[in-house]
């Protein structure tokens, strides 16, 4: 197993490909942000639908469980290969961010649910006592209290999703990993590109995780 | 109040004068700026039953925890059976004890906790046999015989196969007492062992302790808010205030004719409510 090829890290090569990888990292970030924006909306819609009458809540619950129980990669293939059969042709990037958004929307719906359940029952009763209508009860009373404690979980999922974006390479989106793959197959040098990709992910996600931890600790303190 | 030299107590000790089983010498414990034990001198004679009373925050729990090696004092020396607990002699000096020394001296001490601290993943029987088997090296059958005897004594002979989650608070505390007794310590510490119990369960635990105080040779240090109970079982009552012994004496004196105004107002407050 060990046939040692004397191997050295080629710094010159690494520096040469770095700008290209950083440009690709920008695509990756865009995919994360757009995908997350979709997930935030989808998650809220799913969470609210789950509170509706059974004829709505049961299928929605099933949909959430189904999305959470199947691999994102397969879901991306489904969107990528099946949508065109029904005349919907989207770019790979758009397909990818929709896939990410739907997948993590299912996860975020659980975060919304927990956050909403966390709001004290007395708050609903107070809203009724003050004769708020349904919409105002949600926008002025429930959500403003439910959302802030959810922020750390949102942050966690944002980072998780960021680390899942390399999957988009499987449907030909030229993001960070795909760019490294292209460089590797052109130069037959995989160590530098893949290692750099790993380092870029680490450099972005580790500080983000620290920020989320701080946020988490802050909310934990406030709750006491 | 060391035991009288002619007292034939504690035959297993072998020494003619057994001396105090526990001695605090100028012990100070601080948590940050707060001095919880303040140059405390305090002794426990062999076989002595002591009730420790005092206002909240006066350091009662802390003395027990220092003695159980759960809290390390900042200054002073604690002797258990003549041996320093938190220190060991090296080149004629006392240096900080290592784990091996702590374990050697600690085997003389046992403790029953306010919140029982039973092991939830073990049956009642195993809660009682685990330490005798693995710490004292007893055989399983020997440990189980002893455990059954002790569980009988605390009235739980029929609960051996239950798990702690299936017991009431009073039953849990009685298991915890049996568990501590199984280690046969020379000194047993009780920290408000009834204060986490529903009122109707307090009696069953106090009765066990009464019997124990009457029948056993070991010294008992009992922190309690149950004044009648303290009066019944204690040879000596120690009133604690701000990390020092403010007043001590036989129960008849402390409860009937306290001298220290702090003792008087404390007793007035607890007995009046």
């Amino acid at each position: 197993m060990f046939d040692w090829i004397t191997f050295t890290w080629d710094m010159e090569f690494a520096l040469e490909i770095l700008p290209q990888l950083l440009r690709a990292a920008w695509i990756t970030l865009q995919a994360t942000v757009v995908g997350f924006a979709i997930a935030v909306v989808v998650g809220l819609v799913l969470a609210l639908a789950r509170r509706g009458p059974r004829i709505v809540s049961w299928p929605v619950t099933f949909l959430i469980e189904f999305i959470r129980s199947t691999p994102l990669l397969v879901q991306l293939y489904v969107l990528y290969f099946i949508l065109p059969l029904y005349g919907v042709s989207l770019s790979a990037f758009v397909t990818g961010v929709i896939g990410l958004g739907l997948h993590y929307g299912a996860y975020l719906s659980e975060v919304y649910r927990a956050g909403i359940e966390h709001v004290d029952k007395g708050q609903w009763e107070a809203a009724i006592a003050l004769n708020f209508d349904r919409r105002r009860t949600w926008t002025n009373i429930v959500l403003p209290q439910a959302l802030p404690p959810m922020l750390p979980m949102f942050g966690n999922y944002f980072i998780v999703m960021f680390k899942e974006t390399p999957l988009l390479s499987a449907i030909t989106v030229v993001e960070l990993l795909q760019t490294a793959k292209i460089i590797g197959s052109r130069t037959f040098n995989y160590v530098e590109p893949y290692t750099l990709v790993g380092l870029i992910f680490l450099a972005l996600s580790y500080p983000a995780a620290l920020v989320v931890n701080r946020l988490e600790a802050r909310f934990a303190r406030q709750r006491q | 109040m060391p035991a009288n030299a002619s007292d034939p107590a504690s035959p297993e000790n072998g020494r003619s004068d057994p001396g105090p089983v526990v001695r605090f010498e100028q012990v100070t414990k601080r948590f940050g700026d707060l001095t919880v034990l303040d140059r405390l001198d305090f002794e426990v004679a062999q076989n002595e039953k002591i009730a420790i009373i005092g206002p909240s925050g006066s350091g009662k729990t802390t003395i027990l925890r220092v003695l159980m090696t759960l809290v390390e004092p900042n200054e002073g020396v604690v002797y258990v059976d003549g041996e320093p607990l938190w220190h060991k002699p090296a080149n004629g000096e006392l240096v900080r004890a290592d784990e091996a020394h702590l374990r050697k001296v600690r085997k003389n001490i046992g403790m029953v906790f306010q919140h029982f601290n039973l092991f939830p993943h073990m049956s009642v029987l195993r809660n009682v046999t685990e330490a005798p088997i693995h710490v004292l090296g007893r055989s399983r059958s020997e440990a189980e015989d002893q455990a059954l005897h002790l569980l009988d004594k605390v009235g739980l002979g029929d609960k051996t196969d239950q798990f702690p989650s299936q017991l009431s608070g009073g039953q849990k505390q009685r298991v915890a007492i049996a568990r501590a007794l199984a280690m046969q310590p020379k000194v047993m510490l009780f920290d408000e062992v009834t204060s986490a119990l529903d009122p109707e369960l307090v009696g069953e635990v106090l009765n066990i302790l009464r019997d124990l105080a009457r029948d056993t040779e070991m010294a008992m240090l009992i922190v309690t808010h149950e004044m009648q109970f303290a009066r019944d079982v204690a040879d000596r009552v120690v009133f604690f205030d701000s990390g020092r012994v403010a007043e001590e004496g036989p129960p008849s004196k402390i409860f009937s004719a306290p001298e220290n105004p702090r003792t008087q107002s404390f007793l007035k407050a607890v007995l009046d409510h």
Partner: protein
Amino acid sequence: MGIDLLPTLLRGAGITIQLTLASAALALVVALIAGLGRLSPWKPIRILAGTYVEVFRGTSVLVQLFWFYFALPLFGIRLDAFAAGVLALGLNVGAYGAETVRGSILSVPRGQIEAGIALNFSAAQRMRRIVLPQAFVMMLPPFGNNLIELLKATALVSLITIPEMTFEGYSLQMTTGRTNEIFLWLLLLYFAVAYPLTLGVRAIERRVSAFLRA
């Protein structure tokens, strides 16, 4: 719906299960070692374990997979695709598991350790007889969730040509063009394995929280 597609997909499913089990075993071992390592009294061990956890949690599992498969050979270490897959998945999930191990150990109540001291157990005995058995119970639900995530993550190794279920599905769709049926089957098969696991984990979760409340 094309039953004729099933044998191929089920052959892939067999490999998916093998991959899941092999990676789970690796992840479990690594999680225990690294989780305990993070609590070691010895600082170099803590740093080593912490670095492992942060590196594998901080980079993407797919990047790790590609790194093990494509970059490791250039260091003279040649892994076949299956080994690279198990290594990447196992080490990745192991890093998350290590945090579970650490968190569970730290959440055993202080009173349990104090009772262990009062009964004069040695530090090692306290860990083995009192802390770990209780921590292990708390680890079960998160480990169950990790297993489900792992099962889904095995789909990724199709990208390094391991013929597991997703790979077989993808190849079938390339050769037969029966896109709808194939992907529907794939989703159903994953769901059929993962969802019972989810229900199982929830059942365990309820029992564990009942145990912890006691």
